[in-house]
C-alpha cells in the first residue's frame, strides 16, 4: 500500500480514538477529502519542481507510534537551550511528555493542542483561530489538518509577555522502524503581547522519520513574535514545515530558520499582512552537505498599505547537496507604500552541489519599493588572500569566510544563548576549529 492510501485508511482508525462529534472534526473530515483528492505533491507542480517526495512515499511509515516512550532529561539536555530557563512543550514520538515539559496557565496559556481542541474553556479561541490561516487547499497542510490532535498551543493575552522563552521540541525514539509525525501548533499573540519561541525536531536514532508539521501564528495589533526554527536533525529524518502567519496592524513577526541537518527539509513559510505598519521578517541560514536537500518556499502577501517585509537567506552547499529558494512576494493594488526586500545569497563549495533560486514578484501597486537579489558564487578570492597573508591556512581561511558569510543573519537573534548555540553549530558544521571561543 502506498503512503497516501495508508494515510487515508488510517484516518478511520484515528477516528476511533477521538471525539468525532466535536465541531473540529468537521474540519478534519473536509481536510482528509482534500488530501484524498490531491495526494502528495509531485514534481510536475511548479512549487515542487525541485523537491521530490517520491522516495519518502516508498517508506512504510507507521502513522501512529507503537507504544509510548519516555526519556531522561539528562540524555536529551543538549538539545535544549539549557543555559537559560524556558517553558518547554516536549513530545516523544508525537506524544506529550509531561516529565520533560514545563507548561503554564499563569496569565498565559503555554500548553497542549490536545487540550485546546477538546476542553470547553478553549472553545471560543479555537473557533476563532484554528485552521483559519492554514491553507485549505494545499494537500500536505490538509493532511496535517486531518490528523490534527497534538502539538503546542500558546495563547498570550493582551499586554502580556511570558516570563521566559518557549521551547517546542519533538523527539523521535526510533521505536518504530519508520514513523510519520504530524504536529499541529497554534500560536496566538493578542494585542501588545510579545513572545519568543524556539522549535526543534530531533530524531534519536537512524530510523526514518517524516514530520509534516503545521503551525498557525496569529499576531494581533502591535504584537511581537520571534520564532526560531532549529533544523539540525540526523540524516534519516525529513521535515516538511508549513507555517502560516496572520498579522494585524503594527505587529512584528520574525521567523529564523537554521537548516543544518536532516535528509530532506522543506519550509513553506507564508505571511499574510492583514493590516498596516506591519513588519514581517524571514531569515535563514542553510549549511548542508552530502546528499542533503533544503527547500525554502516563502510567501509574503502585502494586502494593506504601509507595510514592510524583509527576507535574508544565506546558503552554503557542499558535496552533493541541493538547495532551493523560492521567494514569492505579492503586493496587492491597494498596498501602496509597501517596502519589500528579499535577498538570497549562496556559496557552492563543491562542483556537485546545486542551488535553484527564484524570486517571484507579483506587484499590482505602483508606489512601492521592492528589491530582490540572489547570488550564487564562490568565496571572495581577495578576502581569502587577506586571511592567508596573516598566516591563516587556506582551509581555515575558507571556513572563517563562510562563517562570516552566514553569521550576519544572526544579528537579529534576540536570545544571546541561542545565538551562541547557532554560532557553535555553524562552526561545527563547517568542520574546522576556528581557534577561538564563540
Amino acid at each position, binding site marked *: 500500500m502506498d503512503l497516501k492510501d495508508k494515510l487515508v485508511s488510517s484516518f478511520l482508525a484515528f477516528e476511533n480514538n477521538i471525539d468525532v462529534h466535536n465541531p473540529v472534526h468537521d474540519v478534519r473530515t473536509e481536510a482528509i477529502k482534500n488530501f484524498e483528492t490531491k495526494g502528495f505533491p509531485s514534481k510536475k507542480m511548479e512549487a515542487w519542481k525541485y523537491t521530490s517526495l517520491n522516495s519518502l512515499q516508498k517508506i512504510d511509515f507507521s502513522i501512529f507510534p507503537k507504544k509510548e516512550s519516555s526519556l531522561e532529561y539528562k540524555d536529551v539536555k543538549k538539545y535544549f537551550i539549557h543555559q537559560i530557563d524556558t517553558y518547554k512543550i516536549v513530545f516523544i514520538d508525537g506524544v506529550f511528555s509531561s516529565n520533560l515539559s514545563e507548561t503554564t496557565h499563569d496569565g498565559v496559556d503555554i500548553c497542549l493542542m490536545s487540550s485546546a481542541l477538546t476542553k470547553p474553556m478553549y472553545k471560543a479561541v479555537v473557533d476563532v483561530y484554528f485552521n483559519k490561516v492554514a491553507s485549505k487547499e494545499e494537500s500536505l497542510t490538509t493532511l496535517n489538518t486531518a490528523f490534527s490532535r497534538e502539538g503546542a498551543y500558546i495563547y498570550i493575552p493582551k499586554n502580556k509577555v511570558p516570563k521566559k522563552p518557549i521551547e517546542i521540541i519533538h523527539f523521535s525514539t526510533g521505536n518504530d522502524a519508520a514513523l510519520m509525525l504530524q504536529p499541529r501548533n497554534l500560536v496566538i499573540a493578542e494585542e501588545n503581547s510579545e513572545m519568543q519561541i524556539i522549535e526543534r525536531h530531533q530524531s534519536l536514532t537512524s530510523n526514518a522519520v517524516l514530520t509534516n508539521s503545521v503551525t498557525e501564528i496569529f499576531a494581533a495589533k502591535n504584537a511581537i513574535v520571534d520564532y526560531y526554527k532549529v533544523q539540525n536533525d540526523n540524516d534519516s529524518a525529513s521535515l516538511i514545515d508549513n507555517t502560516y502567519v496572520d498579522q494585524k496592524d503594527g505587529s512584528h513577526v520574525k521567523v529564523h530558520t537554521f537548516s543544518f541537518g536532516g535528509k530532506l527539509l522543506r519550509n513553506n513559510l507564508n505571511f499574510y499582512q492583514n493590516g498596516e505598519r506591519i513588519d514581517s521578517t524571514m531569515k535563514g541560514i542553510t549549511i548542508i552537505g552530502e546528499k542533503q536537500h533544503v527547500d525554502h518556499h516563502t510567501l509574503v502577501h502585502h494586502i494593506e498599505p504601509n507595510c514592510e517585509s524583509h527576507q535574508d537567506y544565506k546558503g552554503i552547499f557542499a558535496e552533493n547537496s541541493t538547495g532551493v529558494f523560492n521567494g514569492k512576494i505579492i503586493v496587492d493594488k491597494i498596498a501602496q507604500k509597501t517596502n519589500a526586500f528579499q535577498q538570497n545569497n549562496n556559496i557552492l563549495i563543491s562542483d556537485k552541489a546545486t542551488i535553484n533560486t527564484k524570486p517571484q514578484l507579483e506587484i499590482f501597486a505602483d508606489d512601492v519599493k521592492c528589491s530582490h537579489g540572489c547570488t550564487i558564487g564562490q568565496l*571572495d*578570492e*581577495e*578576502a581569502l*588572500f*587577506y*586571511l*592567508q*597573508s*596573516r*598566516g*591563516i*591556512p*587556506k582551509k*581555515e*581561511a575558507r571556513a*572563517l*569566510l563562510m*562563517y*562570516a558569510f552566514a*553569521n*550576519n543573519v*544572526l544579528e537579529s537573534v534576540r536570545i544571546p544563548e541561542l545565538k551562541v548555540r547557532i554560532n557553535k553549530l555553524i562552526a561545527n558544521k563547517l568542520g574546522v576549529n*576556528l*581557534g*577561538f571561543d564563540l
Partner: protein
Amino acid sequence: MLKIKDLHASVEGKGILKGINLEVGAGEVHAIMGPNGSGKSTLASVIAGNETYEVTAGDIFLDGESIEDFSPEERAHNGVFLSFQYPVEIPGVSVTNFMKTAINESRKAKGIEDMPAKDMLKLIREKSELLEIDRKFLSRSLNEGFSGGEKKRNEIFQMAMLEPKLAILDETDSGLDIDALRIVANGVNKLKSKDNAVVVITHYQRLLEYIVPDFVHVLYNGKIVKSGTKELAMELEEKGYDWIKQEAAV
C-alpha cells in the same frame, strides 16, 4: 633579506611587472614610488603570494631561500607581512579573535603551542596602546564599518602583533588624516629594528616625512627606472612623474 630577481608577473595574460630587481637588507627602509598603474600594488601582492597574479619569470628570495612556491600563509609564517591598501571586511569575527587565530596558526606552523590567553591579552593591550587603539575597537567585527583611518591603523596593529621580518605597506597613507598618519607612522617607526625591514609603497612623498626611507625607487611601467635616496622622493614631489616618464621613454 629580500632579494627580487628579474621578476615578471601578469594577470589574465597581461604583463604588469616586467623585470623587477630589488634588494632590501635588514634594518633598511625602502620606498617604492610611481604613478598610478605602474605596478606598485601588484609588486606588493606578488611578494605576499597573491595567486591572482602569475609569476612568468624571475624569483623572490627571503634570507636566501626562494619563496616563489610558498603559499601566502607560508610566506606569512616566514615573516612576510602586507598591509593592504583595501583591507577586507570580515563580519562576525572580532579583531581580537582574528588576531588570536592568526597568531596561533603561525605558531602551529612552527610547532609551537597556542599562546596562553593571558600572554595574548597582554600582547594585545601593549600593541593596541602603541597604535592608540581603543579597547572597544578590538571587539568590533574586523574592518566592518571601519573608517579609512581605522582600517589602516588596524593593519599596523596587526603588523605589531605579528612582528614580521619584512613589512610591505601598500598605500598605507591613503585615506589618512594628518593625526592618523602620525599615529600610523609612529607605530611603524617603533616596530623598526636592525633585524627587520620595511618597504613603503606610496604615491606621495607625505608619508616619507614620517617614515624616512634609506632608499627610494621609482616604478614605472613594470620596471624600476630610477633608484636613489630620500632626496629623490622630494624631487618627485616637486616635479611630478612626467620627467620620469620622459626619461624612461628615451
